[in-house]
C-alpha cells in the first residue's frame, strides 16, 4: 500500500520546486532523441536494405576455380526445385579512359593521369542481360538509371549499341584529336548514373577499357595488358552506393573475349566467376543456399552460396553496429537526465530533512518516506517519458516538413537528403523500441530517485528533527 501522505507530499514537493522541470525536460529530450534519431536510422537502414535487396540476387554462387563453366554449374544449380532462375556473371577489375580526354589531359599534366575525368578504376561485371532480367532486379536498375542518368538506346537490350548512336556522339562532341567515323560500333557498357554524372559521361561516348590477364607461357606466366573500346549504351542505378560507384556492366561475351575466351576458339569455355540465383517465392533462401552449395561441392569444392544478406554481411553489420553505437550514445543522454534527477532529489531530501523527522514523529514509517521520493522520481520519469514519446512521434511524423521549413526559413538542412540520394528523410517507428525507451526512461528515473529516497528512509528521526 502506498500511504496517502507519500503521494500527497511527492506531488506537493514537485509542484513547489521548479528545478524538477529540468529533470522532466532532461528525460523528455533523451526519450525524444532516442525515438527520432533511431527512427531515422531505422528508416535509413530499411532504405539501404531495400536498395541492397534490389541490387543483390537472392543467392550468389561464388568461389569457383579459374576454369568454371556456366553450363555445367547451371545444370547443377537448376536441379534444385526451389531455383527458378540463374544468370552467369564474370567479374574482373580494370580501368577506363573516356575517349578523347586522355590525350588532352596528359598534355596538361606532363604525362601524369591525375583527374577522375580522364580515367577511373572499375569492377567490370560481365552479364547476360536477358538472364539477368529474369533473375535479379536488373530491370529496376535500368529504370532508375534512366530516371537519374540516361535511358538505354535499345530498351529491350540495354547493352546493345546502334552504330548511329556512337556516330551521333562523335559528331556532337567532335573536338581536335577525336577519331573519324567508325566502321562498326563497340560493345555496350552500362555505367551507373552516379558515375556518369561524376565523370561527365554521355550516352554513346566511347570508353577505352583496360585490364590485364595472366597468360601461361609454359615455364613462365606473363601479365598481359588487354584493351578494348566499349560504348556507353545506358545507365543503371541500384541505390547501393558502393556497387553503383565501383561497377560497370558489360556483356559477358565481350569480357570473356578480353580474358582470352574467344567464341571462335574451340577450347574456349563459357567462363563465369559467379552465378546469380533466383529462389522460388516463399522458399527459405538460407535452406536453398545450403542445398545448392552441397550440390556444387563435387564440381567446385571451393564454391560457396551466399544469401543476399551474407553477400553484404560486412556492410549491413557495419550499419547495424552504427545504430547500436548511436543507441549507446543517446542512452548516455538519458544517464545525464537521470543524474540531474538524482541531484535535484538529493537536494530535496537534504532540504526536507526536518520534514522527514516530523513525518516520522507523526507516524510515518521508512517505506512511506522512501515512497515520497521514489514517487517524485516516478512522476518526473512518467512526465518526461510521455512528453518525450509524444514529441518524438510527432517530430518523426513531421520530420520532412520540419526539414523543409528549416531549409527555407533558416537555411539549415537538418538531414541532407541529397547526400544520401534520398528524396525524403526516411523514418521507421518501431513500437517495440518506443516501448523499450519509455520503460527504460522510467526505470532509470526510478533508480535515480531510489538512491536519495533510500537516504531519506534511513534517516535517524531524532537527528532529522534537530537538522538546521
Amino acid at each position: 500500500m502506498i500511504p496517502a501522505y507519500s503521494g500527497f507530499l511527492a506531488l506537493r514537493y514537485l509542484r513547489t520546486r521548479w528545478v524538477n522541470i529540468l529533470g522532466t525536460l532532461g528525460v523528455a529530450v533523451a526519450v525524444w532523441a532516442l525515438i527520432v534519431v533511431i527512427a531515422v536510422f531505422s528508416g535509413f537502414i530499411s532504405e539501404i536494405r531495400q536498395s541492397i535487396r534490389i541490387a543483390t540476387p537472392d543467392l550468389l554462387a561464388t568461389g569457383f576455380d579459374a576454369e568454371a563453366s556456366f553450363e555445367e554449374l547451371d545444370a547443377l544449380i537448376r536441379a534444385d526445385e526451389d531455383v527458378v532462375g540463374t544468370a552467369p556473371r564474370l567479374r574482373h577489375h580494370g580501368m577506363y579512359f573516356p575517349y578523347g580526354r586522355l590525350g588532352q589531359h596528359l598534355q596538361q599534366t606532363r604525362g601524369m593521369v591525375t583527374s577522375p575525368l580522364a580515367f577511373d578504376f572499375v569492377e567490370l561485371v560481365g552479364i547476360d542481360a536477358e538472364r539477368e532480367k529474369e533473375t535479379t532486379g536488373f530491370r529496376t536498375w535500368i529504370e532508375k538509371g534512366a530516371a537519374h542518368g540516361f535511358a538505354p538506346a535499345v530498351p529491350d537490350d540495354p547493352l546493345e549499341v546502334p552504330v548511329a548512336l556512337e556516330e551521333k556522339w562523335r559528331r556532337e562532341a567532335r573536338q581536335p584529336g577525336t577519331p573519324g567515323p567508325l566502321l562498326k560500333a563497340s560493345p555496350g557498357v552500362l555505367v551507373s548514373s552516379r558515375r556518369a554524372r561524376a565523370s561527365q559521361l554521355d550516352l554513346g561516348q566511347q570508353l577505352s577499357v583496360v585490364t590485364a590477364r595472366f597468360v601461361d607461357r609454359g615455364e613462365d606466366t606473363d601479365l598481359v595488358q588487354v584493351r578494348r573500346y566499349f560504348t556507353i549504351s545506358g545507365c543503371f542505378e541500384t541505390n547501393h552506393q558502393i556497387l553503383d560507384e565501383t561497377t560497370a556492366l558489360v556483356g559477358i561475351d565481350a569480357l570473356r573475349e578480353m580474358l582470352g575466351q574467344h567464341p571462335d576458339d574451340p577450347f574456349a569455355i563459357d567462363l563465369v566467376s559467379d552465378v546469380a540465383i533466383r529462389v522460388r517465392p516463399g522458399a527459405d533462401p538460407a535452406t536453398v543456399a545450403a542445398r545448392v552449395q552441397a550440390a556444387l561441392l563435387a564440381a567446385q569444392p571451393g564454391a560457396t552460396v551466399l544469401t543476399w544478406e551474407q553477400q553484404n554481411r560486412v556492410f549491413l553489420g557495419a550499419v547495424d553496429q552504427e545504430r547500436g553505437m548511436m543507441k549507446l550514445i543517446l542512452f548516455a543522454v538519458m544517464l545525464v537526465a537521470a543524474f540531474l534527477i538524482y541531484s535535484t532529489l538529493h537536494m530535496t531530501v537534504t532540504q526536507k530533512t526536518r520534514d522527514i523527522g516530523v513525518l516520522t514523529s507523526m507516524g510515518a514509517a521508512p517505506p512511506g518516506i522512501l515512497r515520497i521520493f521514489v514517487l517524485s522520481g516516478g512522476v518526473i520519469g512518467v512526465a518526461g517519458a510521455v512528453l518525450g514519446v509524444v514529441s518524438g512521434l510527432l517530430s518523426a511524423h513531421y520530420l520532412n516538413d520540419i526539414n523543409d521549413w528549416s531549409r527555407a526559413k533558416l537555411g539549415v538542412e537538418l538531414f541532407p537528403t541529397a547526400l544520401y540520394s534520398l528524396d525524403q528523410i526516411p523514418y521507421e517507428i518501431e513500437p517495440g523500441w518506443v516501448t523499450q525507451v519509455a520503460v527504460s526512461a522510467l526505470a532509470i528515473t526510478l533508480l535515480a530517485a531510489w538512491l536519495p529516497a533510500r537516504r531519506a528512509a534511513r534517516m535517524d528521526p531524532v537527528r532529522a528533527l534537530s537538522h538546521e
Partner: protein
Amino acid sequence: MTRPILEARAVTKSYAIGSRSIPVLRGVDLAIGEGEVVALLGASGAGKSTLLHVLGLLDPPTDGQVLFEGKPVHNLPIRERAHLRHRQIGFVFQFYHLIPELNALENVKLGTMMDRSLWSWLKDRRALDERARELLRTVGLTERHTHRPSELSGGERQRVAIARALIARPKVILADEPTGNLDSETAAGVLELLFRINREERVAFLMVTHDERLADRCHRVVRMKDGVVVS
C-alpha cells in the same frame, strides 16, 4: 496518579561518539497517567528531550523498557512503532515544525494520511477535512486555513501544530518546550489551549519546560538532572 498510559522503566540511553559512550539517561523511571499533565523540568543537557524521544518511540532506549498501557512497546517492529506513534502519541515541538509547502489546513490533514492509502483517504476526505477544520476552530484558527506557515505568527503556527497533534485522537501528547519560542502573552494563550484540551479531551501531556510558572500549573512536576529523575 491515574492509570499509567506511557511509562519509562529503568530507561538508559547512551550515544556513541567515536569510541566513547556518552550516557544521557541513567535509569529513568517515569509514568504519565491517563489525562495527567506532567511538567518535565531540568537544565539544558539533563536529558529531557532525549527522554521525550525515547517515550515517543523515536529513539530506542539502550536499556530498560517503554510501556504503553502496561505493554512493552520499545522493541516492537518499526512499522508497529510508527503505527502506535500515529494512533496514540502526539508531538508538539518548540519550533512548530510545520511543513512549509502546506497551508494550515493541509498541515493538520496530513495527520489523517499516515495509515490510509490514497484511495481510502480520498474516499473519506470530506469527513477528514471537516475534522481538520473543527480542530482548527478548536485551537482558535477559523480564518487562516489557507495560509502557509510563513504567513502565520508564532502563536498561530503552534496552534496549527497542536491541531495536527490532535487529529489522530492521541491519548498522550509529548510537548518539547511548546511555548519556548513565544512571547509571554502568546505563550499564555497556547498554554490555556493545551490545558483546555486536556480537560475536554482527557489527553495526557508530558511538557518539557524551563518555565517554573508553567510547571506550577501542571498536575505533577518531574525534575531531571544529569540523566536521572531527581524529584
